[in-house]
Each structure stands twice: as structure tokens, then as C-alpha cells.
């Protein structure tokens, strides 16, 4: 494992000078080490290499609804400008249709390409209850079991709390989002929350491995096992089992209502948090709000074979759609996470640095952060900074 990462870091230093000749050597060297692939870095490497033809990757792009299409257009604009070797295969999903053809096409495209970048697909209330959330279908069909979100306080953003650095790992496929509901007696609806040992062990394992990889000291499991003794009790038990295999990482647990209370008073105490689906929804939204809002944090959904990137809080933002006021930061950072996943680290760093410079140094903020900038102004600033760093770019 050490040898593999050493090879990668050497290639980063040598590549710019040798322009590609040594790059080939590195690639050959890299493939002979693939037997370690499954045991190395978690945030993407145990997934088979994504579609790549002629040195260019193909990534599925699902525009979604609300602000999704415009933000993803900006991402493509920035990628095209920075000459990122990624081609997007755009698949539209019409949320107004009752059939599942659209979403199945999208799922097939993601299976084909291995990686996707998506906006949120709206779930209309006027549809009958049999029409399930498209986003949920996508996550469960592709078995994207881990939702990872990293909340960090940014120096350029004014918030009530500072020095927040929390990684949230949320089980993404079961729990309360099983979509199993029935009405046995008229007026009485039962909704099933499923917790399984396998999935709980899997997500706990993911959390601890990620914590170790990122050098984190503590993992907190969030639950409500005092009330849901069997369900959340099983989840907690699985976390404890996995924790015993990682003696270097402290493990503790906290009840979800206490967690939210602690988050709004002392969020600095949390390091890595792992939890089932619904609590993950609550905690990730609280944390996103604490660091500055839904426009700032990117999220990633990892499965064994696929990875899908989106904004962390999954909002459609219908009320601000097409007004050029949405914050493109979250989607741009999600694009960078995707580039890291595709091992295009240089491009990822350059775009990420440009986004952070715009946010923290230039202080060009959109309305959600209290500024007056428009989406296009922020994107233009990002592209200008990328160009100023001297890399190969297209025309501005």
C-alpha cells in the first residue's frame, strides 16, 4: 500500500517535466500493483477503473431539476475551460413522468460509465404514492451504500460557529428509506424501517477505514437505540464490533436528539460520525447549515462498483432556479471530488484552489452567503484564477 502511494506521488513530481513519457511507466507500474487495489484507499480505489478511451473519461451527467441544470452547465464550462479530459454523457430524467424508463436509462448509463455527476431530481407530491423518489431508486439500484460528506468551516464565510471539521458517513440504502409502506386498514399506514446486519457492518467498516485513512481520531455512532431497541440496537452493535478491530480509533455513541443539541452548541467536539439513513439526513443538513449553507458542501455516494457525486444536501432549489443567484461552489467541489475519484488530481486541485480563493480571498459571495455576486460572476472568477496559475486553458 505504501509502495503504491509512493509511486503516485513520484509521478506527480516527475510528470510535469517529462510530459507523459514517464507517465506511461507509472501507469504500467500502477497496474502491476492492482492486486492491492481492493485493500488500498477507500474513497474510490476498490472500484474498477471507470470508462476511459484515448485518455479521456466518460462520466454520466444527470441535470435533474431546479438549479441542477444551470449549475452543471457551469461545471462543464469550467471543465472545458481547464481542458479536463472528461466527456459527459448527458441523461435527462423527467420527474413528471410516472414510468421508470427515464431513471432506468440513467442507471444503465452509470453502470456503463462507472461514475456520475448529478443534480437533484424532484419528487412531485401530486403523483400517487407508488411513484418512488427517483434519487432513492438510483441509490438503491446501484447499491451506493455510503454517503460521505465533509463539513469544514471556511475562512471566508461568516458563521456562528468556527473550527468545524466533521466527516459524516451515512448509510444510504436502507433504514427509513426502504420505501416499504402499506395501508392494511383504511386510515392506518405502516412504514417499515429495515436495518440489516450486513449493511450496518458494511457502513461501519467503511467509516472506520475512512477514519484511519484520513488520520481521524474518533468515530461517533448516532442512533436512537433507547427507543428502537432492536433496529438501532443492531446498528450500534455492528458499529461496536467493527470498532474493536480498530483499537487506534476511539469509538463512542450518542443519541440523535442529544447529537443535534450538541451540534448547535459545541460542534467542534465531533470528528467522524456514522449513522443510519434518516439521522444522516438530519445531521448532514444541520452540519451543512452550520458551515454556511447548502451552497457550499459537496457530497459523494460510493458503492462497491459505482460512485455518484452531487451536492451534499440534495436540494432542487426550485425557488432560485434560472435566476443566476445560486451558489455554484457545492457543485464545483462535487466535480472536483469526481476528478479525484478519476485520479485526475491535478485538475481537481487547481479547480478547488480557484474556488476557495474566490470564496476566501476575493470574498466573491453569492446571495446565500450574504453577498451580491451572481453565479456567472463566481464562475468567471474561478476560471480567471485557473488561467492565472499558468496551466493550459481554453479561451476565456
Amino acid at each position, binding site marked *: 500500500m505504501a509502495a503504491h502511494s509512493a509511486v503516485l506521488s513520484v509521478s506527480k513530481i516527475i510528470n510535469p517535466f517529462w510530459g507523459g513519457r514517464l507517465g506511461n511507466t507509472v501507469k504500467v507500474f500502477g497496474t502491476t500493483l492492482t492486486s492491492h487495489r481492493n485493500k488500498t484507499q477507500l474513497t474510490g480505489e476498490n472500484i474498477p477503473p471507470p470508462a476511459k478511451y484515448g485518455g479521456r473519461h466518460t462520466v454520466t451527467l444527470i441535470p435533474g431539476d431546479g438549479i441542477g441544470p444551470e449549475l452543471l452547465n457551469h461545471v462543464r464550462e469550467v471543465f472545458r475551460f481547464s481542458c479536463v479530459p472528461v466527456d459527459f454523457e448527458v441523461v435527462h430524467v423527467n420527474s413528471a413522468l410516472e414510468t421508470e424508463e427515464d431513471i432506468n436509462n440513467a442507471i444503465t448509463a452509470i453502470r456503463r460509465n462507472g461514475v456520475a455527476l448529478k443534480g437533484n431530481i424532484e419528487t412531485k407530491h401530486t403523483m400517487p404514492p407508488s411513484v*418512488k423518489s427517483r434519487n432513492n431508486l438510483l441509490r438503491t439500484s446501484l447499491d451506493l451504500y455510503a454517503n460521505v460528506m465533509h463539513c469544514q468551516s471556511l475562512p471566508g464565510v461568516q458563521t456562528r460557529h468556527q473550527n468545524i471539521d466533521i466527516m459524516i458517513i451515512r448509510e444510504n440504502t436502507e433504514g427509513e428509506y426502504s420505501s416499504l409502506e402499506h395501508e392494511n386498514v383504511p386510515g392506518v399506514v*405502516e412504514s417499515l424501517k*429495515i436495518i*440489516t446486519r450486513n449493511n450496518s457492518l458494511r457502513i461501519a467498516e467503511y467509516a472506520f477505514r475512512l477514519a484511519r485513512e484520513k488520520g481521524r481520531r474518533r468515530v461517533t455512532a448516532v442512533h*436512537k437505540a433507547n427507543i428502537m431497541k432492536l*433496529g438501532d440496537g443492531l446498528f450500534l452493535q455492528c458499529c461496536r464490533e467493527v470498532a474493536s478491530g480498530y483499537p487506534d480509533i476511539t469509538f463512542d455513541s450518542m443519541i440523535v*436528539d442529544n447529537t443535534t443539541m450538541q451540534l448547535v452548541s459545541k460542534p467542534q467536539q465531533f470528528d467522524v460520525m456514522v449513522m443510519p439513513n434518516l439521522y444522516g439526513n438530519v445531521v448532514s443538513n444541520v452540519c451543512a447549515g452550520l458551515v454556511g449553507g447548502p451552497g457550499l458542501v459537496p457530497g459523494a455516494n460510493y458503492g462497491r462498483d459505482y460512485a455518484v457525486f452531487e451536492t451534499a444536501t440534495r436540494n432542487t432549489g426550485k425557488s432560485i432556479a434560472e435566476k443566476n443567484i445560486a451558489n455554484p461552489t457545492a457543485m464545483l467541489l462535487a466535480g472536483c471530488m469526481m476528478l479525484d475519484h478519476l485520479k485526475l488530481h491535478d485538475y481537481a486541485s487547481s479547480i478547488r484552489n480557484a474556488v476557495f480563493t474566490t470564496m476566501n480571498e476575493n470574498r466573491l459571495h453569492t446571495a446565500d452567503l450574504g453577498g451580491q455576486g451572481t453565479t456567472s460572476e463566481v464562475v468567471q472568477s474561478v476560471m480567471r484564477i485557473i488561467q492565472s496559475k499558468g496551466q493550459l486553458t481554453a479561451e476565456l
Partner: protein
Amino acid sequence: MDIAPIRWEERNVTAIKGPGGRWMIPPDAKESMDRSKIGLKGPLKTPIAAGHPSMNLLLRKTFDLYANVRPCISIEGYKTPYTDVNLVTIRENTEGEYSGIEHVIVDGVVQSIKLITENASRRIAEYAFEYARNNQRSSVTAVHKANIMRMSDGLFLRKCREVAENYKDVKFTEMYLDTVCLNMVQDPTQFDVLVMPNLYGDILSDLCAGLIGGLGVTPSGNIGANGVAIFESVHGTAPDIAGMDLANPTALLLSAVMMLRHMGLHDYGNKIQTACFDTIRDKKVLTKDLGGNSKCSEFTADICRRVQDLD
């Protein structure tokens, strides 16, 4: 000096085993409650190996306490990162995710059932709108996750919408749970009355309590069928400081104020609340958890003095 017109009847509610082997609260407690309809309760602890279900659960079932009401108002002297919080969470307290129905389907697969019924949803929605009307609150927001739990939260939402039709003077909005959480930590002033099923209510009411300073200063009321209402503080029993005159009585005092308002004794309620807030704002006699080192009795004496001065 004006004394609040309350006569106290103390009752012990430690569970006993009734005829037929079912656990219940002592019959004289139940009878007293049925008669007076209003109760004030301190924290109850269920011993782990007691053999009977949680005491709070028992009380809830006995009196059908279907609504848990928690007003969260920023306390001027007790600084938190959030100022100007003024909202009320109304939580359905009998069903939902806390129905307690769980099964092990096969080894390693557990199913918990979340129950949503038309009656309970309608009842809590009606209470929420009544509360909004009686307390001059301008809007009620239903919190749900009907995009994922289409049928269950969908039913809850439908009932809220139906009830909203009868209360046109109160604004009705609906918002996803995640959006509420996101907005709550950024700008809690946008919320007024929130109504929601059991689990979301549990999480959100504690979140809001955290915004104003924690469970030590948050009042709570439980409304039951047949006009029964029990007001309580929601913090723990704190056995380590019990009996040492160190505890902070604010939560219980504010719950008592809620009780007075519920009974229509707004005058007394307002006086005691003002006195309490003034004492905290003054910062001269605060208990340890509020940052001072006075005793509970000193804190209370200060409040009493201020109440007398206000007369």
C-alpha cells in the same frame, strides 16, 4: 401580595402492578389527575432492571398525552450563538416511529414499524392550529418527509392540509425535515409553530432546545385527551446533585408558567416569567450551570423578590 390561586396535590407515580399483572400508575394518582386535569411533573427516572416500561411512557399511555408542546424562546441573559429564537414545536406523541413495534425477520434483519394514523394526525394538526390561534401565532409549518415516505408522511401532510382549511386566519406551510434542519441552524427566526410526527418532533424539539441553551432552561407541556395537561421539565434527574440545593429550577419554573397560561392565568404566568428572565439577565445569583455559583434557593428567592416588586 398576590398569590397564584393554585392548590397543590402531591402524588407518587411509581408504577405498581395492578390486577391482571399489568403495570400501571397508582390509582389514587390517576384519580387525582382525572379530577384536577392539570399536573406539574419533575424528571422521572426508570431504573434499568425495574421490570416495567418507562415511567414517562406509562404516564403517556394512561392519560393519552398526544401532544408535546415545547416553546423555545431565547433567554436574554443566557447567551447562545442564536438570538431572537421564538418558536414552538408541537410533536405528535403517541405513534409514529415510537410505536415500539419491532421484529427480527430473519437473523440479522430487523424491521421497525412506523405507524401513522388518520385520527392521530388530524388530532395533532387540530391542536397545533388551536394553539396557534389561542397564542396569537401567525403560522404553522408541517414538517415531513413525504418525498421518501410517500404514504405515511403523505397521510400526515394531507390531514394537516385538511385541518388548515378550517383555520384560514393562520398561515399554513409545509417543509421537508432536512430543509427545516438546514434553515433552523442558519436562521431560526423564520419559524413560528412547527407540527410534526413523533421522531422528527423528538429531534427538532431537542435541536430547538439546544438553540436557546439546552434542556436546563426549556419548558415542556404534554396535552392529553379529556382536557388533561401535564407540564414538565425535560432534563434528567441529575442524581449527582440531588438534594444539594444546586439544581437550576428554570426549566420547571417555565413549565409552571406554561401551566398557568394554559389555565388562563396569564397575569401570574407573565409576572413569574418576567421575574425569572430578569434574574437571569442580571447575572447576580445564577446557578452553576448558568455560569454562576449561587444556590438553588438563592436563585429562587431572587425571583420571588422580583415577583413581589412587580406587584
